[in-house]
Every structure is written in structure tokens, then in C-alpha cells.
């Protein structure tokens, strides 16, 4: 496997993965902060390496709107955005999912203003939780790239037809140079079938997308989106295995575990912090600590059954959130993990830690500190939720 690897920037690896998925239309707004993803794609298109329409538009709102039109016309579509750009798309994200358009977009996760901050956290995509988009979170560059064909296959499934976000941590994954295997065109052609939707905008056969729905029918549109998410729960796992058979790489489908089965303390997280947690677990296991990891790969659809099953032997759970619902004093993962256990037999204490906001680094020592706090639970000291990396001198 190592022989086929090259050292490239994370953004390039993703752009290359997009290229081999052969999208027909790419639309992007090259604001700062953007990433090299759309820059590299623009280069591929200009060099004739891609047979696609590359649209440079005047805002992120236009970028997603253009893709909605193109996708409704039957095109495979792609964009990449981040932070304020994603926030500006917010309104149209509902249109994409409501019209059941399988747009795939890489979200390079970055903090939202104010104060102005260009660094990594996951507030941007978490804030789009209820827009009806599938959301997967990547652990490293290879997974960020490999998610692209996986998500096209899931999103374009005729029983799903939902747009999807591949979320990768800004800078930490988008700007890192590390060894990856660039996705092979031949394998991707075999893995990902052509997109040929049954219903398209076509002047020869006129039809409406996203048309008026009064109270007598609107609810059923929402219900069907929810049903499609239910199908996606199964397909995400299946497609992860289909990908593994074809390319030889697997990162978990909905979730993944690391030293999980016998772990008393289970850390739950999403994104690039997973790697640092794995190293921390190896270190603590050598010292005899019973610590494990439950990686959440799919945040939407939310894999409640799988999470409950994975936590059945846990004594205490720690959730890591690079986001906060201000006014709830919790991150979204914490809230959802708690909620999925409330009416069930599995009721493990959950401590919600918020950290890594606006690019604050997450060293091993911060993870050890959280685990030590989790150990206090058996002594009757329980923390509901807190910022794990607060600077006391500024707080």
C-alpha cells in the first residue's frame, strides 16, 4: 500500500478524488478563506483534465443555487466551502434537500465570526444539522478523499436522493502534507456508477421541482426526507464495505471503535482529533487504563442504535465537541448522545467537553485531563459539561 502513496496536501487529495468522480458541474466562490480544493479543481478543468462546467460565481449563495439548478437538470454536482461561506448557503441548503438533489460538498470545517477567526472548529457544519443533508466527518486526509465517491454513491441512491457534506477539519486536514493514495480512475469508474436520475428538468418533458406544497402535503415531503435518511443509515455502512472491497480501505461506516469493547471510559468524537485520541489511548492502555474510542463518522443520519450498542459496556462516556450551542452549555454530539439513551436500557453517564474552538490546539495533555475528570465519576464527582481547554487567565 505504501508503494502507491504520495505526499500531497490534503486539499489536493480531495480535489483529485472529486476529479475521478467526474462531476458535470462545479460551482464555487473563491473567497478567502477558501481552500486549495476548488483552486486545484479549477486548474484540472482549465488543463482539460476534467470534462466539466466550472462556474466561478459571485457568492456562496450563488454557488449552491447554481448547483441546485444543475443537479435538477440531471448533472452530478460538486462544491466546497467553509465557515461563513457555508452559513451564507444556509437558506438554499434546505432547497437542495427538499428538492431531493444529491449534491456532494466538502465542508472544510472552520470557526464562525465574530470575533473574526479563520481557524478550525466544527461550528459551521454543526449549525447546518437540520438542513436535511447527510454529514460524514473524516479522521485523516485519506478518509476525506475517500468519502467523496462514497457520498456520491450514497446520495445518488434512488431510495435516498439527499445532498451530502464530507466534513474535514480546516487547516489540520486541508493544509497538512501526508502520504495518501490518490484515488484510481479505473477503480472509481467501477465503484461509482453514472448518475442517471429518473426525474430531471427537461424542456421536452416539463416538470416542477420544489413547487408549492400546502398544509395538505408539506408534512409528507418532510416525512419522506426522514425515511430517506433511514435508508441512508443502512447504505452508509454498506457503501463503506463496498469501498473497502474495491479499494482496501475502511474507516467505519456510521461509527468505528478503537480499543472499545472492554473500555470503561469511552471517548466519543468526530474528525481529525480521532488520531490524537488513538495515540493517547495507546499510551494510557500501557499504564493499565481502561480507555477506548467511539468515532462518530455519520452525524446525519445519527446512528442512535449503533451508538447504544457500542456503549453497552461503558461505565462513563466523554463527548468532545468543537462546537457549542450557546445557552445550552453543550456541544451537539453531547446533546445527541444523551438523548439517544434516555428512553432506553443503556444509560451511561455522559460528560460533555467543548474544546478546540477557533483553532485552539488539542494536545494529548488535554485529552488526558478530560479522562482524569471522567475517572472522578466513580467517586461521585460528576461534571455535566464544561470547556476543556479554557484559559483561566482570560476566563
Amino acid at each position, binding site marked *: 500500500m505504501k508503494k502507491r502513496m504520495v505526499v500531497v*496536501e490534503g486539499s489536493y487529495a480531495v480535489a483529485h478524488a472529486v476529479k475521478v468522480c467526474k462531476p458535470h458541474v462545479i460551482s464555487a466562490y473563491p473567497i478567502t478563506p477558501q481552500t486549495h480544493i476548488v483552486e486545484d479543481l479549477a486548474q484540472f478543468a482549465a488543463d482539460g483534465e476534467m470534462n466539466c462546467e466550472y462556474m466561478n460565481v459571485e457568492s456562496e449563495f450563488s454557488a449552491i443555487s447554481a448547483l441546485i439548478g444543475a443537479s435538477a437538470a440531471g448533472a452530478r454536482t460538486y462544491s466546497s466551502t467553509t465557515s461563513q461561506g457555508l452559513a451564507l448557503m444556509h437558506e438554499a441548503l434546505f432547497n437542495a434537500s427538499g428538492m431531493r438533489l444529491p449534491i456532494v460538498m466538502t465542508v472544510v470545517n472552520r470557526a464562525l465570526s465574530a470575533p473574526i477567526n479563520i481557524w*478550525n472548529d466544527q461550528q459551521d457544519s454543526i449549525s447546518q444539522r437540520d438542513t436535511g443533508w447527510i454529514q460524514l466527518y473524516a479522521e485523516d486526509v485519506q478518509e476525506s478523499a475517500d468519502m467523496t465517491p462514497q457520498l456520491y454513491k450514497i446520495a445518488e441512491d434512488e431510495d435516498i436522493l439527499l445532498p451530502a457534506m464530507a466534513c474535514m477539519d480546516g487547516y489540520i486536514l486541508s493544509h497538512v502534507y*501526508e502520504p495518501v493514495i490518490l484515488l484510481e480512475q479505473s477503480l472509481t469508474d467501477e465503484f461509482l456508477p453514472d448518475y442517471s436520475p429518473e426525474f430531471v428538468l427537461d424542456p421536452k418533458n416539463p416538470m416542477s421541482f420544489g413547487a408549492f406544497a400546502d398544509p395538505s402535503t408539506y408534512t409528507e415531503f418532510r416525512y419522506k426526507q426522514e425515511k430517506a435518511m433511514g435508508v441512508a443509515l443502512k447504505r452508509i455502512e454498506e457503501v463503506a464495505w463496498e469501498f473497502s472491497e474495491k479499494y482496501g480501505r475502511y474507516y467505519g461506516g456510521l461509527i468505528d471503535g478503537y480499543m472499545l469493547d472492554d473500555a470503561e471510559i469511552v471517548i466519543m468524537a468526530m474528525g*481529525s482529533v480521532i*488520531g490524537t485520541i488513538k*495515540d493517547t489511548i495507546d499510551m494510557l492502555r500501557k499504564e493499565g487504563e481502561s480507555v477506548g474510542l467511539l468515532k462518530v463518522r455519520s452525524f446525519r443520519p445519527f446512528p442512535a442504535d449503533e451508538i447504544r450498542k457500542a456503549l453497552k459496556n461503558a461505565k462513563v462516556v466523554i463527548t468532545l465537541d468543537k462546537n457549542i450551542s450557546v445557552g445550552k452549555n453543550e456541544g451537539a454530539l453531547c446533546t445527541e448522545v444523551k438523548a439517544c439513551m434516555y428512553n432506553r436500557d443503556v444509560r451511561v453517564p455522559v460528560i460533555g467537553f467543548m474544546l478546540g474552538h477557533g483553532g485552539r*490546539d488539542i494536545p494529548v495533555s488535554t485529552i488526558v485531563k478530560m479522562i482524569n475528570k471522567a475517572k472522578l465519576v466513580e467517586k461521585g464527582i460528576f461534571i455535566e459539561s464544561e470547556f476543556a481547554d479554557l484559559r483561566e487567565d482570560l476566563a
Partner: protein
Amino acid sequence: MKEIRIHGRGGQGSVTAAELLAVAAFEDGKYSQAFPAFGVERRGAPVTAFVRLDDKPIRLRSQIYEPDYVIVQDATLVDVVDVARGTKPDGFILINTEKSPEHFKMETKASIKTLDATKLAMDFIGKPIVNTTLIGAFAGVSGLIKPESIKNAVMERFPGKVGEKNAAAIQAAYDMMEAHR
């Protein structure tokens, strides 16, 4: 795992140096990871970049707090940035300067190595761009990466005459610093 921290000023190619080290080390059979200390980059402002090298895939994604090796592209940074922070007794700090190591009084148990990379870069490349010369010197002092791998990485990034001139500077710096291992 070996960890490297590179200090430079915006425009000196510190991030490029880190990337080239990662590419070269991978060619030598090691796993590698290179990333900048993400900042708002301005020409002349202090910039930091990081490299990790290991025999197995690298999962750790925090910044580097206890580097085995430090590379300083501009000696004036020593007065502004704590370039010795977190250094180890068996490591080194490689500084681009015409001065000798004794000139630098800093709190570190790491050894200090110096090299007039600016002069070498002027002689071989004709420009005071020292990043490639310094990673050649780093390969010489550390013995971690073959000079051929560094030269290949540089020539792939900068094809043609520019790459060849840089390769010559890299070899000269390597030869000069190999004795200081």
C-alpha cells in the same frame, strides 16, 4: 517518532521547507506529516512550520511542543521567538547565521549548530532564499534523510535550472554539516 520545528519569516519558505522534508523522508521509506502553525501569513512576520517523521503511520495531529530538532531560517528570530522552547538534550537547533554556535546564549540542553546558509544560497542559487539549503544542512547534521531524497523532492517541486541550482546548494550544505553530526 522524530519531530521538527521550523522557524522563519513570512516569505522565507518555511512551510515549503516542511513540505519538502515530508516528501523527502517519505521517499526514504518513512511516514511523514508536515503542517504550518496556522496563522495569518504576512511577509516578514514570524512563521512556524512542523514536520513529524516515523516508521509507522502518523496519527497525532497536535502542534509540536517538544521538538527533537529546530531549524531557524533567520537568526534575528532568536531575539523575538523562543526558538529553544521544549527542545531535548539529544536534539539540536540549526541556525542560519555567519556566527559561531557559542554566540547564541539560550536556555536549552540541545546542541546549537550554525551554518551561513545565506552565503551558500547566494553562491549556488543567486538569491538569499535559504530554505532548501537549510534542509540539506538538516539532513547532514541529523543523518535522518538521504541528500538524494531531499534533492529529488526539491527538483520535483522546482523543475529545470532552478531545481538544479537548489540541488547543488543542498549537496554543499549537506557535505559541510555532515561532520557536525
